[in-house]
């Protein structure tokens, strides 16, 4: 019976595909992502499923699921996204079981203009003034529900404007269905609305210049948030219902040399102060960002500098914790940490979380970073027969004082890293990395506690046959601070093109003597990937795109599935 059903489904799909090709009814495309965890009690890891707020009545299972479907027909497109949490994975914003429609849009795109109604994402420049985006790893989705129009004159001038309501807060009753109910931060609409416009002029294309690329850009954003009646003191503290911010940008590129400058005036930004003024006061927010460098001849060099003062740019400023004021997802802009985003296990233990200036004693941060990539070509002395790739990075960040100055500023974070990748033979490749991090105690960033960690990593890949390969990671962290020394190892065996298995362990032998073990298997075929594993995870921070969220320690089995069609 099952075989018959499967055969009918396959035939139906094939028939649909054939029919659509002939009649041009457009096409449907979509994706599915499902992340499932089964938690187990682990006394050594201080993890008890029964103490997790979302796991009730002895339940030890949690799942985050996303289904996205889009339809395209010539210039028309429409789509939706459904999300289901039953309940959310541990560490995510707390939720009961929820199944809801989260995104819905229809869009018309002509050659020079487009109109979108429904939910959409957008960004001005680097995102310092405005960004709406989705990051499932963080549980962040601040899509706007509204209307957006864009117009472009050839490829010389681009203009866009929108009005919308950011998503955040409580789920509405009318979207809860199928017996699921409850609150989920990130669903539902706020009572805040924003309107924005962005203009980009390509001077070089207007003047018909080929070698030089030069563009001028500017944006303006208005956010409206009603001040609650019982918060009347906010007006006395300079807080406004309508806040206007703007930014100006200059981009230049000539023969591999590039320069990008951005100035942002975010208008009145709200700072947390003691309860005397209802916990809020307003100060001017501004930011400056400069990126310059050279890309060419196997060299990639980037120098970045940024200063941010009172750039918290929240969706909600005046409403209380009920609306998720304290959540990391309460943001309308993008202020990432401008330092290396490490990926090896022991290099991610102390990530940097940027200081946006939402606390009265620190107005923000100032600092910079340098990145250099160089490819020693084949046949050179250092490159050898197969070439060698080198990357080095240095970054250093300091706090601004209460007035936005640098007097009395303190070190927040500093790191240096170098990695060398070398293909020794046709079968063997290695990457060696050294990294030093001076990190501040997370979130408090008082400057009174600086820890230092040195990490070395050896990553070796060996191809046994064209289809069988293995990869070994060996890592060591040396530190006199916090939990002192760590070591870690990972072994991965790949059976191309479908299977991969791995086992890893991260051992804190300097203090807790705890092992954070993990093992898993993955299968991928076409657009389908299924992965299963079991492991113990350390409490820490998930940092994605520069935004960090604290996650608790946990132990358990996981099963994830991603598919697209």
């Amino acid at each position, binding site marked *: 019976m099952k075989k018959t059903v*499967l055969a009918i*489904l396959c035939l139906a799909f094939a028939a649909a595909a054939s029919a659509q090709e002939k009649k041009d009814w457009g096409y449907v495309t979509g994706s599915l992502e499902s992340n499932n965890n089964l938690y187990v009690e682990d006394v050594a890891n201080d993890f008890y499923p029964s103490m997790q707020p979302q796991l009730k009545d002895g339940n030890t299972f949690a799942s985050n699921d996303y289904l996205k479907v889009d339809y395209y027909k010539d210039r028309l497109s429409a789509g939706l996204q459904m999300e289901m949490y039953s309940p959310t994975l541990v560490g995510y914003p707390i939720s009961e079981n929820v199944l809801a429609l989260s995104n819905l849009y229809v869009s018309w795109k002509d050659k020079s203009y487009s109109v979108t109604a429904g939910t959409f994402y*957008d960004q001005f420049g680097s995102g310092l003034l405005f960004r709406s985006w989705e990051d499932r790893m963080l549980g962040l989705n601040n899509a706007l529900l509204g209307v957006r129009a864009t117009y472009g004159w050839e490829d010389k001038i*681009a203009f866009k404007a929108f009005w919308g309501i950011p998503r955040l807060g409580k789920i509405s009753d009318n979207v809860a269905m199928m017996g699921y109910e409850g609150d989920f931060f990130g669903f539902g609409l706020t009572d805040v609305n924003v309107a924005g416009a962005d203009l980009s002029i390509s001077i070089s294309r207007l003047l018909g210049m080929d070698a030089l690329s030069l563009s001028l850009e500017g944006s303006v954003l208005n956010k409206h948030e009603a001040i609650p009646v019982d918060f009347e003191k906010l007006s006395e503290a300079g807080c406004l219902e309508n806040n206007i911010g703007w930014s100006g940008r200059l981009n230049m590129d000539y023969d591999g040399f590039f320069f990008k400058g951005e100035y942002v005036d975010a208008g009145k930004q709200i700072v947390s102060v003691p309860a005397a003024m209802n916990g809020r006061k307003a100060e001017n927010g501004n930011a400056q960002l400069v990126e310059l460098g050279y890309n060419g001849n196997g060299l990639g060099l980037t120098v970045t500098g940024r200063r941010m003062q009172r750039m918290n740019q929240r969706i909600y400023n005046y409403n209380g914790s009920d609306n998720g004021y304290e959540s990391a997802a309460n943001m309308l802009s993008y202020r990432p940490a401008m330092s290396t985003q490490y990926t090896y296990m022991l290099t991610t233990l102390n990530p940097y979380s940027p200081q946006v200036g939402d606390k009265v004693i620190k107005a923000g941060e100032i600092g910079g970073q340098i990145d250099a990539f160089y490819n020693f070509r084949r046949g050179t002395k250092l490159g050898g027969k197969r070439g060698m790739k080198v990357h080095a990075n240095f970054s250093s960040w300091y706090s601004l004082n209460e007035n936005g100055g640098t007097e009395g500023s303190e070190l927040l974070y500093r790191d240096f890293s170098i990695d060398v990748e070398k293909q020794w033979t046709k079968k063997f490749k290695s990457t060696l990395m050294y990294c030093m991090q001076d990190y501040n105690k997370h979130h408090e960033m008082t400057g009174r506690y600086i820890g230092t960690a040195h990490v070395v990593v050896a990553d070796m890949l060996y191809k046994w046959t*064209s289809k069988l390969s293995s990869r070994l990671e060996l890592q060591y962290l040396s530190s006199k601070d916090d939990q002192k020394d760590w070591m870690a190892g990972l072994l991965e065996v790949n059976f*191309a093109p479908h299977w991969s298995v791995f086992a890893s362990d991260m051992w804190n032998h300097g203090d807790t003597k705890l092992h954070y073990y993990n093992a898993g298997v993955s299968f991928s075929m076409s*657009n389908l990937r299924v992965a299963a594993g079991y492991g113990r995870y350390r409490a820490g921070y998930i940092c994605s795109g520069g935004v960090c969220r604290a996650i608790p320690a946990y132990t358990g089995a996981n099963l994830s599935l991603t598919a697209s069609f």
Partner: protein
Amino acid sequence: MKRFLFCLAAMLVAASAFAQVPSVKVENSKGETFDTASLLEEATPMIVSFWSTTCKPCIRELEAIYESLPDWLEEVDFRVVAVSTDDSRQLAKAKSFAEGRGWGSDFTLLFDKNQDFMRAMNVPVVPHVFVIDAKGKIVFSHTAYVQGGEVELFEAVKKSVRK
């Protein structure tokens, strides 16, 4: 179970067989606006690979393509488009990274800093590759990368030319 997975995969391939490349604004390596629909103007097959600087399998896959490309081009005429999904934190770094690997000379580099193209192509995770034939139709796509998987990818490119 194996049959179910095979059938599910077959259905996904069938459903995506008539999908095409939507028009989305991204950036080229000079920071200029680039309409993804213009990728189809050349009317040659192409591999479109979504990657990011923090995704090691993505980098291994693009490196494998980069190493094999001279040999592959002797057999088939096609292009490689590498789409970085890094946001503005890593955008400048992604451009330098690609140059530091020599990709700029062999690949068309695009930068999708707010993941608009990634969403429009329904790429849930990276790495994800598409093979698009000369008529602009998606004829193959694959999520994740296992070392050695580039052989299957090149077979799909050759098949797209024979069609």
